[in-house]
Structure formats: structure tokens, C-alpha cells
């Protein structure tokens, strides 16, 4: 029987949550920005080995500036979380650690990846210094536009929750 796992993707407005999912599921990217309303659900089957697959049910939650307002109903039964922020907009990661505390309180013991997206628009070395000075720790730096480490990030999470 194929295993199914629920992954929730959340973060502030316009950080690229939907684009990350679209890149991972459809391997495509669009510059047209459309605000997600409510929740959008997609599915991707990942294959670890022959006959060893997992269905990832990806819940793309609408962006919010106040993480506390995320509906608990959308988080129930979550197996893995991807918290996305925009590396070009400090407002989306200034309160990162307190945002993460809120997510961890809502989903204790659930594997969580912190992802800085739109990395194609910045100089990575400068970014690393900025993060170091502000005590920001990320699991992955991705670009939905170029596809950089997007698949790798989701596959790592899939392995972790397997």
C-alpha cells in the first residue's frame, strides 16, 4: 500500500509558497503573482526506490503576516511542515524565530524545514552573513524560479517523515 503524508507549506504573503509547490509538482514557474485564498491542495508521488513510493499531499496555506491566525483545522494531522520566507524581504524573516515558536507550539514534534526562497535574487555570501548576525537558521535556500534545491528540499522532508 502506498504511504500518504500531509505536508503543510506556510509563511508570510508573497514568499513563494505556491511557486515552490508548482516547481516541485509541475516543474514550472510563473511570474504572475496570484494571492492564494484559503488552501490549495496538490499531490506528488515521490519514489525512493523501485516500488518504494510515497504520496505527498501538499497543503498550500494562504499567506499571513500573523502566523498565529493560521487556522488550526488546516494543521490537524500534519506530518511535515515547510516554513517559507522571502530572502529579499526582511519583513518576512525579521520575526522568524518567534514565528517558528508559534508553529512549533501548534505542531509539536512535527518535522519542520525553514526555507529561504528567491535565492536567485541575492548574493548568497551576503545573505549568510546577514543570517549569522541575526541568529537565523535555515534548512534550505531555494529558488522556485530556477528550481534550485526545491526538489531536494521536499525529498529530504519526505525521507524524514517516512
Amino acid at each position: 500500500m502506498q504511504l500518504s503524508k500531509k505536508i503543510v507549506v506556510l509563511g508570510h504573503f508573497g514568499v513563494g509558497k505556491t511557486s515552490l509547490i508548482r516547481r516541485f509538482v509541475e516543474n514550472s514557474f510563473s511570474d504572475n503573482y496570484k494571492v492564494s485564498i484559503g488552501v490549495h491542495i496538490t499531490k506528488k508521488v515521490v519514489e525512493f526506490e523501485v516500488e518504494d513510493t510515497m504520496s505527498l499531499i501538499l497543503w498550500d496555506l494562504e499567506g499571513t503576516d500573523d502566523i498565529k491566525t493560521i487556522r488550526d483545522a488546516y494543521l490537524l494531522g500534519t506530518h511535515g511542515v515547510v516554513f517559507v520566507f522571502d530572502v529579499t524581504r526582511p519583513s518576512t524573516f525579521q520575526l522568524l524565530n518567534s514565528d517558528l515558536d508559534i508553529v512549533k507550539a501548534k505542531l509539536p514534534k512535527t518535522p519542520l524545514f525553514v526555507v529561504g526562497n528567491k535565492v536567485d535574487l541575492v548574493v548568497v555570501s551576503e545573505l549568510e552573513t546577514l543570517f549569522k548576525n541575526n541568529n537565523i537558521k535555515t534548512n534550505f535556500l531555494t529558488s522556485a524560479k530556477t528550481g534550485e534545491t526545491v526538489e531536494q528540499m521536499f525529498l529530504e522532508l519526505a525521507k524524514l517523515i517516512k
Partner: protein
Amino acid sequence: MVERDKVELLRDILFTEDREFAKKIAERIKIIEDTIDEREKLSEKVNPIISKQLDDFVEEIPKKLGPTITATLKEEIRKNKEEIVDALYPILGKMIKKYIAQEIKMLSDNISKQLSTKKWSNKFKSWFSGVKEEEVILSNLSVSSIEQVLLIERGSGILAASYSKTETIDEDMISGMLTAIKGFVEDAFGQKNQNLELIEYELYNIHLQSFVSYYVAVVISGNYSLEAKDKVQDLIFDFYDDFMGKNLDSLFSSDDKEKREKVSRVSLEKQLNKKFGNAII
């Protein structure tokens, strides 16, 4: 008398009593052998003893094992509250539903007694519902049919099993979206313990029956009357009752949650097919 005869005589005198004794022993052994060989005879002797022992055992069980059994059950119930409630839910649901159905039937019978013909019944329905009489008659004739059934994990929206008459878009995604809609509506009105029960769109109705750990979504085409709803609920309760029975078997199969074998999707889907596949509602 020769020496040999004398010895014989002496032996007779000395061992006569022993021989009698040995003969008696041999006779007793023969009786015992016969008793053992003949089942009936043995039963006569042994049954009262076994019966007495059993009576004593039955009498002693509540005293000796009672506290241990109670403690074990309490512990199991405490550890697996959700599963136990889940297993009881359809049974209680059925009981309540049957009770209400019976009460309504009695009420309906009383009304029917007063209204002698079907014509009057339709007129009555029409007056009450505000629906035209012709439409009431049409609704009596129209049929509904089950198109799809999904068994969905309540929190995560993960699909556990499905039955579908026709091919639809990915059922995993439907399950997720239904769960999101359900979660949103239930959350938005802030009423605890209230569940979204029906989604209507054009010619289709999605009946949602919530339990503790799972919910069942049934897609129905055609006229979804109260009578059809009643039949669908019965089918859901029957299915869920079976499912929870299997779940409990799995629950008590091991203390270790990881080692418990989940009810297989294949067997669940067979069951869904059997229950809903040819159901007439």
C-alpha cells in the same frame, strides 16, 4: 509323604491368605480397567468431579481474576479512548437513528391514518413544504444513486480507502479539499462538536458522516431525499461498524503502536464496494 509333598503342603498353609488377597487385587484392577475402557462408565465417575471443579472455578473467577481483568480493561480504555469511542460511535448512532426513525414512523402512521389516500399525502407534503404538488409527485418518482465513497482520516485529510463508480480527479486531492472545506466551515462558526454534513452542487450532494478519527464522504447523484439519506446513513454505519471492529482487532494485537498492523486498504475497498456498489437508495 515325600519331602516334596511336605513342602507343597507347607506352602499351601503359608500362602493361602496371600493368594486370596492377590485375587481380590486382580479383580479390582479388572473393574478399573473396564471403567477406563468404557467411556460412559468413566464419565459417570469423572463428570461429577469435573463439574464440581468447574463450578468452583466459575465461582472463583470473579473473585480471583475480576480485579485484574477490570484493571486491564480500564488501562486499555484509558490508553485507547479515541479508538473505543470510535468503535462505539456507529452502534450508538444506529440506536439513536433507529429510535428517531421509529418515532417518526409512528407519527407518520398516525398522520396517514387520518389522510386516507396518497393524493392527500402529496397535497399535505405540498402544503407543508411550499413545493408544488406536481414536484412532490415527481420527487417521489425520481431516484438517487451513489457515485463515490471516500473514507478519510479526519485531521489530516489523508484518504484511507475509496469506491468510485466513474473515474474522477485524484481522490487524494478531493479528500484533502473536502477536509479543508469541512475544517474551514467548522472552524468559522466556532461551534465545537458541530460537523458539516452536506455539500450540494447542482445534481450532486456530498453527504459527510463524521466519526472520531475518520469521516465518510458519499457523493450522491439525483434527488437526495430524506429516505435516501436514511439509507445512506445505514450503509455508512454498517460499513464503519465493520471497519472499527477490524480496527479494534488491530489495536489489541500488540501493545506497541508501531507493531500494530493497520487494516489494509485493499480489504477496506472490497468492503466499500460490497456495501455501496450495488446499494439502492
